[in-house]
């Protein structure tokens, strides 16, 4: 297919661009296969706006006489308005944008066409291999092994080819367990707490059904993570009644009789369309320009967004608490084990593991617990808050996770190596990107699409020193402790950096950030200077002493 067929009018002049907190600019609009490009060539104020078609969530058009107006709402929540003279041009451009922003085929997406302008220092596709993770693990314990049972994605289509499982469980047993778990997602290691040797596993629901089916291998597998005489916790992210109802459809939960050493805790985390609706309502509230305080607060409350944040954080803290404070192993699952399960396991690691609070460690966490663990990014992030499609599989699961990280970051501003921009960047790229990292729903699909060969990895770009410096938190001081966030409503705030990002003047906050960086930078420079001088002095003085006493 040629993109040119979809572009009815490739270019329009005298277009006015309106954005909040910016004066209107006049310039030329161009459409290419993947971008909407607006450029103003005024000498005093040349500027260009490049917008990926895949970033466009919805588009509205209206006319006043022959002046057409297109309002473009993006997946990163920005809203821009283009005034295009000429009805035909405007209609053509609108329909082209609509067609280009809703392409069906993944292989037509920009990552397959994108050619980087930078030198690749490190291929991000092989930066975070589970093998490396396992090597680290083997240096502290030998209770685990790397299994290739899923090499051909035959045991579990949404799992990566290699997984970490208890050493005493062989591949044959794993195959049996896979048959007993929804979608074949048998329990695998998610996190090993070095401090006390406790493990966090994740899986999908067991297929107990109505007649209480059991699977000896499954029991043996998860019991293998327990120390003798100790108990473990199963954190089920569904409420009890939902878990019970799931039995009718062949699903279920771990029953006490068969798992006597495990205690089940139900911690409800909302999923799917409820989340998507909450997201839509919140964004609507954030775009309400009314001056009424009550209306704002009641809309914020009605969106329930912060409730979801609080519930999710609480569940993650609970998992972390079981591991660190109760000294117990934990198994986390909901139904499929691809959404709320991953939110809980990854957030618990942010709390427990200082490594996950570094840039590289966080990237590794996203790769391990989201990409390799089979969170269906392609489905979940197909549309954002402005879309009318309301497909069942669309949900801001990953965004919720990022916001929870931001909430913890806000409470521990010196304990993270990355800054807020790093999190917003990940949000943007999950929804629309020139990189292939977030394409596909699991490793299986990515392998079939040959993404590592045909597209560039986000990490290849982010981890270049030039880019990294933008994402570094100047206040960072490694904190080796477990960090317990507060989940009280008073401690949680709206993530302005994402939800009010385009609706607030950013200048003053940027100045503040700059000042923070300067204060730290100047301090470090002085330290270096003083150290150098001190060394030099010491040398000169010893020289002198040597001369004194020949």
């Amino acid at each position, binding site marked *: 297919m040629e993109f040119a067929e979809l572009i009815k009018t490739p270019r329009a002049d005298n277009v006015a661009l309106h954005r909040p907190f910016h004066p209107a600019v006049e310039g030329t609009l161009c459409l290419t296969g993947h971008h909407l490009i607006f450029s103003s060539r005024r000498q005093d104020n040349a500027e260009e706006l490049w917008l990926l078609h895949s970033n466009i969530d919805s588009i509205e058009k209206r006319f006043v006489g022959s002046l057409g107006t297109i309002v473009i709402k993006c997946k990163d929540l920005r809203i821009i308005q283009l005034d295009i003279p000429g009805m035909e041009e405007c209609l053509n451009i609108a329909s082209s944008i609509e067609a280009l922003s809703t392409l069906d085929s993944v292989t037509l997406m920009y990552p397959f066409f994108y050619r980087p302008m930078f030198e690749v220092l490190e291929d991000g596709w092989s930066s975070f291999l589970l093998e490396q993770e396992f090597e680290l693990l083997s240096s502290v314990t030998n209770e685990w092994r790397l299994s290739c049972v899923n090499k051909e994605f035959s045991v579990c289509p949404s799992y990566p080819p290699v997984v970490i499982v208890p050493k005493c469980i062989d591949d044959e047993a794993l195959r049996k367990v896979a048959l007993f778990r929804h979608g074949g997602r048998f329990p695998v290691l998610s996190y090993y707490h070095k401090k006390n040797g406790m493990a966090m596993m994740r899986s999908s629901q067991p297929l107990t059904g109505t007649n209480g089916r059991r699977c000896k291998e499954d029991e043996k597998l998860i019991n293998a993570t327990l120390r003798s005489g100790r108990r473990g916790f199963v954190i089920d992210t569904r409420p009890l009644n939902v878990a019970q109802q799931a039995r009718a459809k062949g699903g279920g939960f771990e029953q006490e009789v068969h798992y006597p050493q495990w205690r089940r805790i139900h911690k409800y985390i909302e999923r799917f369309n409820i989340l998507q609706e909450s997201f839509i309502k919140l964004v609507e509230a954030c775009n309400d320009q009314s001056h009424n305080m009550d209306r704002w607060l009641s809309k914020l409350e009605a969106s329930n967004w912060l409730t979801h944040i609080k519930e999710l954080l609480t569940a993650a803290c609970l998992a972390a608490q079981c591991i660190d*404070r109760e000294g117990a192993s934990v198994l986390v699952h909901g139904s499929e084990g691809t959404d709320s399960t991953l939110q809980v396991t990854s957030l618990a690691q942010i709390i427990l593991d200082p490594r996950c609070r570094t840039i590289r460690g966080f990237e590794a966490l996203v790769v391990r617990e989201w990409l390799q663990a089979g969170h269906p990014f392609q489905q979940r992030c197909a549309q954002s808050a402005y879309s009318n499609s309301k497909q069942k599989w669309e949900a801001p699961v990953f965004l919720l996770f990022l916001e929870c990280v931001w909430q913890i970051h806000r409470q521990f501003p010196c304990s993270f190596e990355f800054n807020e921009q790093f999190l917003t960047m990940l949000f943007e790229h999950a929804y629309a990107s020139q990189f292939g990292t977030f394409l596909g729903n699991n490793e299986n699909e990515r392998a079939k699409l040959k993404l590592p060969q045909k597209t560039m990895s986000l990490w290849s770009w982010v981890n270049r020193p030039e880019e990294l410096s933008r994402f570094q938190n100047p206040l960072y001081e490694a904190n080796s402790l477990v960090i317990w966030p*507060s989940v009280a409503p008073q401690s949680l705030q*709206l993530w302005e950096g994402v939800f009010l990002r385009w609706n607030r003047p950013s200048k003053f906050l940027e100045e503040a950030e700059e000042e923070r960086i300067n204060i730290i930078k100047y301090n470090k420079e002085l330290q270096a200077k003083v150290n150098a001088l001190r060394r030099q002095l010491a040398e000169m003085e010893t020289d002198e002493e040597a001369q004194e006493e020949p």
Partner: protein
Amino acid sequence: VENVRLLDRLSSRRAVVGTLYLTATHVIFVENGSETRKETWVLHSQISSIEKQATTATGCPLLIRCKNFQVIQLVIPQERDCHDVYISLIRLARPVKYEELYCFSFNPKLDKEEREQGWKLVDLNEEYNRMGVPNNYWQISDVNRDYGVCDSYPTEVYVPKSATAHIIVGSSKFRSRRRFPALSYYCKGNNASICRSSQPLSGFSARCLEDEQMLQAIRKANPGSDFIYVVDTRPKLNAMANRAAGKGYENEDNYSNIKFQFIGIENIHVMRNSLQKMLEVCELKSPSMSDFLWGLENSGWLKHIKAIMDAGIFIAKAVAEEGVSVLVHCSDGWDRTAQVCSVASLLLDPYYRTMKGFMVLIEKDWVSFGHKFNHRYGNLDGDPKEISPVIDQFIECVWQLMEQFPCAFEFNERFLIHIQHHIYSCQFGNFLCNSQKERRELKIKERTYSLWAHLWKNRADYLNPLYRSERSQTQGTLHPQIAPCNFLYKFWSGMYNRFEKGLHPRQSVTDYLMAVKEETQQLEEELEVLQERMANLQKSQSGGNKVKSKQQDRSKQIGLYTSNNSLANTPQEYSNDLKSFPSRSPSQGDEEDSALILTQDNLKSSDPDLSANSDQESGVEDLSCRSPSGGGCLPSEDSGKDSDEAVFLAG
């Protein structure tokens, strides 16, 4: 009283046993337990209510609510003791004479001269001179010399030059409590001014020629503009209701060249109830997010804050952008008027965003113009209907602005919180009484100390590390957004949940940056010393002289000290499910729901808690191991881990 239990609000299971002392000025609770002996001090004047609850098996509970939003829950074993304490506290918390207040017994060990110096720190004459008055348009008037015209005004007021004593007196007779229009802020750049007064006694049709002349005079004092705004900060309905009582608002037909505007800030009673409702929300035990947000909305508190801010923004805009003078009033012109004038001044003039300037601003718009501190903040036992958080709201407006303009203010959040605390504490004489006249009669300046001097002495603690005078937001007028989605008004947990440390960010960016800045300063000094030594050494080497410079290694211990960073950090109650699960040891069972007990009065610098690494697990490594020497002392990861572990087991 011994064996009293202090309960933690966040977790009823966690309580400490100790001894309760009542002194002439404080309630003191000292924890038993030999190592820590944590102390909680509460000034009697901070107590806003005491509630004796039904006796239970464990004893008699006593709930003390404080004006600085601290809530203390005690359980006293004996009913009789509890009753005694209750009766004593009721008496102690409601003094009837000014002489009973703490400031008359508080002695910071300063001599007479230092005390006088302290009172001279904020000088309003100097301030008016800074603004640029007196000048061709404005003069100081001595018409109120002996408080003869208006007893709630200061003796020295600035009025337009063309306003004669006759006009002033005439106008004052036409204004509630004779609070005639007087200058609050003068904008040197364009001659526009903010004046303040009380409502006119217009009723349905009354006029007053002198009052009309007075407003003319204000307009004429700003030759660049052909009208003035008259801003009535009340809701229109309230103002109209006042007409029936012979009061009311200016009729545009009677006054030439005025534009009249209602703003709609609610009265003190509405505000008092609003705060009450919000505090109830803060006190909820483990509220859900919707409980909290719904309660916050329902209290209307942020709506009121926004109304005050909007009024300030309107006036600042009129003065700065339109160059039009504004006359502001409400009913008596001492509550809403003070709020709005000071918010507008703060937006207009960067000076008020400095530490000294902010003190001046409060002194100017609040203290000197007769804001009724005694009545509003209940220093002496009085009519509970007079109490209202008027200045608290102003302080919150400042905080909301600080959130939006992080580099614009020289001072930090702590400065605001401490000022709020001392408005209620009566430890210093500044905010005593209802007017300048009363303060003079009491000889406050001879008998008490000034808060401003105290804050100024400790100003290093109150600096905003991000403030730099050359920043764009530091200069000129601030232009905040108006819509809530552009200017996010937030719940101020640092104030209203001030004593629930567990709810706050566990690491403070401000404290961290302040520590870094302090270190930077020491490094600068050291660099200078080193360079000097270097120069000497080079000289001596070239000259063959053996001048040996003294070894002075200052680098080893640069005391970077930010104790606030190592706040307690234990998991909260994330789930009740864990309770029933058999724990490995009973002690651990306690630990799992342990929220934080941190009720000490932060204001006491001598508080052992702030420095001692007591029974709290720290979520943050002690910053004191930051060493500029690099090799001097290594920040060891192990030490951090050890403390974590040790505390865990000790708990």
